[in-house]
């Protein structure tokens, strides 16, 4: 009992730390990716390869003047960013990163808590996220903010329908609402661990591969998180920004932290629902356990090579350090003791990371929707397609499953 | 042999003309109307020949109309010799008058309407005649009343016409009331309305009952056949088109009463009192109407009162037990009176609407055909041998003498007056010099041909159709010894009448005025029809109307009924105005009331649930 509480506390701290740092560095990563898409180095000054850029940003945002405009509805104005933030962070608590593990004789799950209505919980929390935006827009007592808030909340409500429908489809296949069981049904259970492969994932799983569903989920996810190409709030120049036009400094930042947290949530949900969570693409006996080591080793080698032939002066010192670190990590991954609990989380993070990379990639690629197009797209295209997909899935599951 | 076809053909004509007539051309309307009547006439002839020497009654049962308790009334038609006579008269004269109407109505509005109503009348009249029980007969009876109302008020844009129609309808109601009472009484006593059943049981029934039934039936007959005291509607009925006057108010409908009485002879023969009443009424009517006819200046009015008077003759005959004589006179009268009316119509048509005898005169040369035919009718009605009127009228007079001599003498006097006023009209219209200002023109042949046919019939009808002999099997034989003296006297009376008319209106017209002036009071009295209408108005109509207005309308309707209804409504309104305080339209107060109710409900449930 007490051990349960202790372990839960530890897990909470760990997950929170990981979450926050990943939030910070997600921003950095995004800037880097977009920079490279646009053929420029991106953040480079603060720390090696701008690695300390996020801290600089945080310090800047915290130290900026936090002004509260007059005639705002103060309590709601203050509450809005925290509502958004909280609602985006809560849902991480039900997301499983890996299977049960033994730590110092105690067996526990790599998951804060497992609800047997986990999916519904995530949906509920996501739907609550609307309040942050709506209230922010309304309480700013500014017509642009108000209209922007209306816009964004309407957008989120509208895209919630196809999102839920596409979530329902894989649930029909996996026949559960608990996220952990969801993964286990996709080959994450101890029994099927030996044979679990990419074919067990819902995206390819019979009777009806959920590729279409996955795509719709991603698109709706973009909209849910107000990301490109649906990032109307960011449209300062044509729409006078959005609900957060009156916010400044840390409050302003918290909206973006909420956005990135939502990104992470959506990505991990995509991983859990469609990509088989922590399940490796092919069974370990065919060497899937070596993949992380190989990857990191390769990265280390590349880093060392560039360290030999530096493009910049500083690289002569930093890149070898990275190379050694990568090789160390590769070696670490080869230790059987840690593989048990490190591999699954690696695969989970890899999948989530690739989905996140897709987010950034799209942002670097696509232009922005017009509002009416945006709404018409969901109501006239996504929604019907999702319904048809759900019906097909249900029919096939009832018929073949 | 499909008796139903006889009345249904005119009905079909009525339906076709009534529905589509507005879009039909006049020719089409004519062909439909006259075709239907002619066809039914043809069918009547076929039926007669098919029946051959009809001794008894031929009946056809179509369906059971009413079955309740003892009463079992079927819709069935029957034919016996009496019916055949009536059928021939109705369809034959009807057809002729239809043809005549083509010419007469040529320039009138509502052409198709006229013919449709005429066909409808034919239908109901034939139903009346063919009926084999009193109820079906009553249907026809009411139907012809309706048609008479419709046709009298044909010129419904003229007030006097519509008034006349209402008058006819209302007065007939009184008679029909008697008729229906008689039927109830029959059902009560005989448990049936079927002629056969009723007449089979009638001899056994107590005389009082039969008398009551007879008197009630007589009341009906008086209404329909314009006898005292219900004759008042007939003169006014002349407001309708002249063919209507000829067909309905001279030839057929008004004789329905006589027909019905003759049909019910079994009842009457066992109710002498009723028969006496009929005879007296008939005689009184005949004399009374004749006197009025003496002084009328409207040519149609003259013939109208003449009709009343002749109907009185028929009643006299029937009342004296000479049923066949009554029917005989009915037939002949149908001929010559229809002819008189049609002739009058022709005259009016020739003078384009002029009806006043004082504005006529000297038309003998202008419209010779009309003149000739009307003279034929006049001699027939005057009872000069060997014309039709002579036979029938004398048969009646002889029977009257058998019954009571004074009746004969009065009848003879009436006959003289009849001859007088008819020829007075003739002389005023056709002799002397023209006193009018309108241009007179002879009527078209389509009008003259029926006139000619009717003239022949009224001249020769007497010895062409031996009606009494034909009807002998039906009616009880009346031993009336041939009495040349009586015949001679009546003929002489007629001749005297004619001579007097010639003297006063043909030879030296001034004589008439001086005569009228000399006996001024009497003349005024007669001229104003004994002020009967005024008397009725003062004694019956005004009290009735006043009473209705004061008592029924103001008192009962407005006071009692409306008072009750409005009172209830007012109470409800007061109560509502109390409850309205709740309906303030304010949602919150509504909610409060709902809350109130739910609290009460919870308390009630708690108590019911036994929670103390």
């Amino acid at each position, binding site marked *: 009992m007490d051990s349960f509480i202790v372990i839960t506390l530890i897990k909470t701290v760990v997950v929170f730390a990981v979450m926050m740092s990943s939030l910070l560095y997600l921003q950095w990563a995004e800037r880097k990716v977009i920079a490279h898409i646009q053929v420029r180095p991106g953040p480079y000054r603060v720390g090696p390869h701008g690695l300390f850029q996020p801290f600089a940003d945080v310090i800047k945002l915290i130290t900026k003047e936090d002004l509260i405009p007059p005639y705002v509805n103060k309590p709601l104005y203050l509450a809005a960013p925290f509502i958004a933030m909280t609602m985006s962070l809560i849902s991480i608590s039900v997301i499983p990163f890996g299977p049960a593990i033994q730590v110092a004789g105690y067996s526990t799950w790599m998951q804060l808590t497992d609800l047997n209505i986990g999916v519904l919980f995530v949906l509920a929390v996501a739907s609550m996220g609307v309040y942050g935006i709506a209230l922010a827009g309304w309480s700013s007592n500014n017509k642009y903010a108000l209209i922007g808030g209306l816009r964004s909340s309407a957008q989120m409500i509208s895209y919630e329908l196809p999102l839920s429908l596409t979530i329902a489809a894989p649930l029909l296949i996996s026949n559960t609402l608990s996220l952990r069981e969801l993964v286990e049904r996709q080959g994450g259970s101890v029994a099927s661990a030996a044979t679990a492969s990419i074919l067990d994932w819902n995206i390819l799983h019979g009777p009806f591969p959920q590729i279409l569903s996955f795509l719709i989920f991603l698109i709706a996810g973009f909209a849910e998180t107000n990301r490109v190409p649906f990032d109307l709030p960011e449209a300062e120049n044509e729409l006078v920004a959005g609900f957060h036009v009156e916010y400044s400094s840390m409050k302003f930042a918290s909206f973006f932290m909420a956005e990135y947290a939502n990104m992470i949530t959506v990505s991990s949900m995509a991983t859990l629902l469609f990509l088989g969570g922590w399940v490796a693409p092919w069974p370990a006996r065919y060497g899937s356990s070596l993949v992380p080591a190989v990857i990191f080793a390769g990265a280390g080698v590349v880093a060392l090579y560039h360290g030999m032939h530096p493009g910049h002066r500083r690289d002569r010192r930093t890149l070898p350090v990275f190379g050694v670190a990568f090789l160390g990590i590769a070696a670490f991954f080869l230790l059987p003791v840690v593989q048990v609990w490190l591999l699954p989380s690696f695969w989970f993070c890899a999948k989530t990371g690739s989905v996140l990379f897709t987010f950034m990639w799209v942002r670097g690629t696509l232009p922005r929707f017009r509002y009416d197009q945006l709404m018409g797209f969901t109501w006239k295209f996504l929604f019907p397609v999702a319904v048809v997909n759900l019906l097909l899935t249900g029919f096939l599951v009832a018929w073949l499953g | 042999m499909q008796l139903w076809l006889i009345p249904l053909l005119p009905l079909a004509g009525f339906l076709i003309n009534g529905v589509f007539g507005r879009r039909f051309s006049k020719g089409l309307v004519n062909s439909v109307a006259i075709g239907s009547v002619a066809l039914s006439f043809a069918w009547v002839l076929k039926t007669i020949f098919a029946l051959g020497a009809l001794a008894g009654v031929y009946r056809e049962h179509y369906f059971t109309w009413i079955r309740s308790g003892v009463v079992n009334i079927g819709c069935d038609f029957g034919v016996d010799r009496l019916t055949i006579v009536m059928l021939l008269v109705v369809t034959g004269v009807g057809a002729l008058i239809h043809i005549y109407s083509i010419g007469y109505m040529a320039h009138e509005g509502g052409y198709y309407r006229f013919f449709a109503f005429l066909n409808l009348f034919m239908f109901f009249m034939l139903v009346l005649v063919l009926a084999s029980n009193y109820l079906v007969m009553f249907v026809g009876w009411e139907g012809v009343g309706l048609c008479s109302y419709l046709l009298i008020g044909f010129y419904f844009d003229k007030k006097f016409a519509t008034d006349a129609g209402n008058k006819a309808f209302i007065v007939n109601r009184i008679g029909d009331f008697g008729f229906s009472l008689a039927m109830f009484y029959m059902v009560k006593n005989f448990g049936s309305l079927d002629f056969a059943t009723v007449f089979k049981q009638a001899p056994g029934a107590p005389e009082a009952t039969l008398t009551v039934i007879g008197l009630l039936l007589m009341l009906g007959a008086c209404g329909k056949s314009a006898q005292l005291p219900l004759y008042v509607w007939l003169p006014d009925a002349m407001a309708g088109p002249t063919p209507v006057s000829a067909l309905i108010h001279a030839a057929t409908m008004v004789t329905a009463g006589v027909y019905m009485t003759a049909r019910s002879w079994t009842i009457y023969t066992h109710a002498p009192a009723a028969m006496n009443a009929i005879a007296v009424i008939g005689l009184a009517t005949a004399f009374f109407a004749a006197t009025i006819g003496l002084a009328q200046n409207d040519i149609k009015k003259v013939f109208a009162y003449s009709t009343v008077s002749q109907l009185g003759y028929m009643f006299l005959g029937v009342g004296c037990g000479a049923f066949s004589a009554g029917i005989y006179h009915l037939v002949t009268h149908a001929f010559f009176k229809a002819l008189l009316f049609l002739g009058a119509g022709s005259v009016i048509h020739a003078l384009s609407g002029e009806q006043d005898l004082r504005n006529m005169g000297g038309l003998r040369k202008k419209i010779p055909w009309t003149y000739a035919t009307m003279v034929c009718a006049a001699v027939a009605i005057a009872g000069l041998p060997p014309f039709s009127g002579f036979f029938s009228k004398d048969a009646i007079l002889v029977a009257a003498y058998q019954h009571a001599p004074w009746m004969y003498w009065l009848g003879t006097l009436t006959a003289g007056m009849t001859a007088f006023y008819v020829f007075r009209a003739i002389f005023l219209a056709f002799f002397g010099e023209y006193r009018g200002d309108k241009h007179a023109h002879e009527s078209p042949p389509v009008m003259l041909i029926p006139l000619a046919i009717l003239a022949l019939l009224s001249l020769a009808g007497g010895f062409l159709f031996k009606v009494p002999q034909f009807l002998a099997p039906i009616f009880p034989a009346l031993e009336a010894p041939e009495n040349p003296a009586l015949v001679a006297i009546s003929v002489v009376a007629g001749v005297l009448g004619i001579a007097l008319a010639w003297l006063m209106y043909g030879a030296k017209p001034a004589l008439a005025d001086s005569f009228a002036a000399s006996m001024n009071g009497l003349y005024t009295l007669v001229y104003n029809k004994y002020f009967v209408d005024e008397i009725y108005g003062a004694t019956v109509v005004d009290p009735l109307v006043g009473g209705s207005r004061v008592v029924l309308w103001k008192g009962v309707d407005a006071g009692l009924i409306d008072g009750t209804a409005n009172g209830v409504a007012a109470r409800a309104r007061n109560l509502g105005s109390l409850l309205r305080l709740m309906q*303030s*339209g304010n949602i*919150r107060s509504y*909610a409060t009331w709902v809350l109130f109710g739910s609290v009460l409900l919870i308390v009630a449930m708690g108590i019911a649930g036994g929670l103390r």
Partner: protein
Amino acid sequence: MTDVPVPISWFLTLSAILFVLGVAGFVFRRSVITVFMSIELMLNAVNLSFVTFSYQLKQVNGHLFAFFVMVVAAAEAAVGLAIILTVFKNRETLNIDDVDSMKN
């Protein structure tokens, strides 16, 4: 630490309190929207008692009733808010006391 049970009557009393508060909102508030929200509050209170009964009777039916109540509430909210929009469009007011006549 041992788990202290809660009397069912407490749940029901809570539901009653919420319901009465909802009624109070309905009766005393003038803003149409607030009144409408009070109705939702009442519905929630009823749902709570449904679920409580379901617990007491160890049956799932109460949950279903609560579910249906939610569905109906959703439809009602959609239509009701549309009506509110129309009323506001026509009368320029959200005060329930001004909306006391059928005619405009």
